[in-house]
């Protein structure tokens, strides 16, 4: 019986190939848009993260700490989680840099080097929310041999706020786009099936049960979903490859979103099934 229904569904699709292809195309575009939107939201997150990952901290070291101690501290910090790399700046280097910045003459009057040695810390990308940076800074400041930790607090906070706002706005937008488009797509299926009220009526009069009437429609819906999901998956795959090839930009997505393409097909199938189920409504015999 199942084979009969599949065959019926397939013949129905084939007999009205024109409008059905158009529908598949419509669904495929819609699913692609959903996928692109979702990927863009995560892309935005990734981009913001990467972009803010250039920021770092400076830990000022205690006066009189011997070079050995400085280096030990440097090695210790470089093993801290969340820290990408560290750079030890001796007091002499610091003075040289200041001289370079202000002009040598300006600092001629200095008798002793007033500047402390420091360790420059570059954070790992993805560690740039304010709370973590603060926490890290506090922890470092409590270490023996470290006098003070400077981390451009204003900057970090500003970035973090901006990143959060962009991220929130992007997510909200992505969510409404996704829901909206899926609503439109399930309506498309409903509108497509609407004209077949007559077919349903005839089947009812011949003594068909709800299940018998529904089966080919549901199968058609799944066909629609898988076909258009496949097209959309192909499109998304190509687009994603193009972006990452051209810009070297790989979007980080949480589980299970890294399986974007199979997911699109799945979403398509579920959408097709649900869409036709809703389209059929309760068939009154």
């Amino acid at each position, binding site marked *: *019986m199942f084979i*009969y229904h599949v065959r*019926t569904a397939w*013949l*129905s699709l084939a*007999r*009205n190939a024109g409008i059905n292809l158009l529908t598949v195309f419509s669904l495929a575009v819609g699913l692609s848009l959903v996928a692109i939107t979702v990927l863009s939201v995560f892309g935005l997150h990734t981009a913001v993260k990467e972009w803010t990952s250039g920021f770092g901290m400076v830990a000022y070291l205690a006066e009189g700490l011997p070079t050995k101690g400085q280096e030990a501290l440097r090695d210790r910090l470089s093993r801290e989680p969340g820290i990408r790399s560290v750079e030890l700046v001796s007091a002499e280097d610091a003075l040289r840099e200041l001289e370079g910045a202000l002009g040598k003459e300006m600092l001629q009057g200095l008798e002793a080097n007033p500047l402390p040695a420091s360790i420059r810390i570059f954070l790992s990308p993805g560690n740039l929310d304010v709370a973590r940076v603060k926490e890290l800074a506090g922890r470092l400041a409590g270490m023996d041999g470290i006098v003070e930790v400077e981390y451009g607090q204003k900057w970090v906070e500003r970035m973090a706020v901006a990143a959060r706002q962009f991220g929130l706005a992007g997510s909200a937008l992505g969510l409404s786009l996704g829901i909206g488009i899926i609503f439109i797509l399930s309506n498309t299926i409903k509108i497509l099936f609407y004209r077949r009220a007559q*077919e349903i*009526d*005839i*089947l*009812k*009069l*011949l*003594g*068909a*049960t709800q299940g*018998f009437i529904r089966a080919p429609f549901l199968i058609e819906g799944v066909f629609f979903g898988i076909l258009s999901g496949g097209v959309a998956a192909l499109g998304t795959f190509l687009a994603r490859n193009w972006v990452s090839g051209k810009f070297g930009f790989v979007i980080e997505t949480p589980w299970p979103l890294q399986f974007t393409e199979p997911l699109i097909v799945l979403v398509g199938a579920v959408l097709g099934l649900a869409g036709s189920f809703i389209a059929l409504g309760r068939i*009154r*015999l």
Partner: protein
Amino acid sequence: MIAFDTVTKTYDGNKAIAGVSFEIQKGEMAFLTGPSGSGKTTLLRLVYREEVADQGRIVVAGWDLNKLDSTSIPFLRRNVGVVFQDFKLLPDRTVRDNVELTLRIQGIADDEARERVTSTLRLVGLRHKTDAYPPHLSGGEQQRVVIARAIIGNPAVLLADEPTGNLDPDTAKGIMDVFRTVHSRGGTILIATHDPNLYEHSGCRIFRLQEGKLLA
């Protein structure tokens, strides 16, 4: 097999069927006639429960339609073959698929279904149109597809609504022979028609409707 007891059906305040009572025995063949708009089709629709009576009681093949719950309706209808006046063929399925539908709905399997379709189409003279689509058939050919679909399931009750309206006298005679064969096998048959040639000298009972009422 079919029993109406003071049945009334009203559309928008007009009585299409007005207090009709009659009984058709199992294995009986009867005719229903009357002018255009007198309620013949409505009466038939009440039998297979496309319409629900406003008043009165209808019993078909043992089912009391007033007490029928909606999940039983399909099973009632499988016992009632209908030649619809307006055909009700599925335009995008072949003649074979249209006729086969009756059997499929009853869950009859592939091989048996195929054979029965072929022999039934031969019976109505449409063997050569097996793979055609209804919109590509002549009026009379479509009508015969509907007849084939109605009889293929060996229904306990066969209702035919103007089954020869699009047929020439010779073909009509052939179809009446088919109905008589079904009848001789024990089928209960009710034929609504305008054509006196069908029922005159048939020896069957004739019900005459006039503005929804059964004439004595």
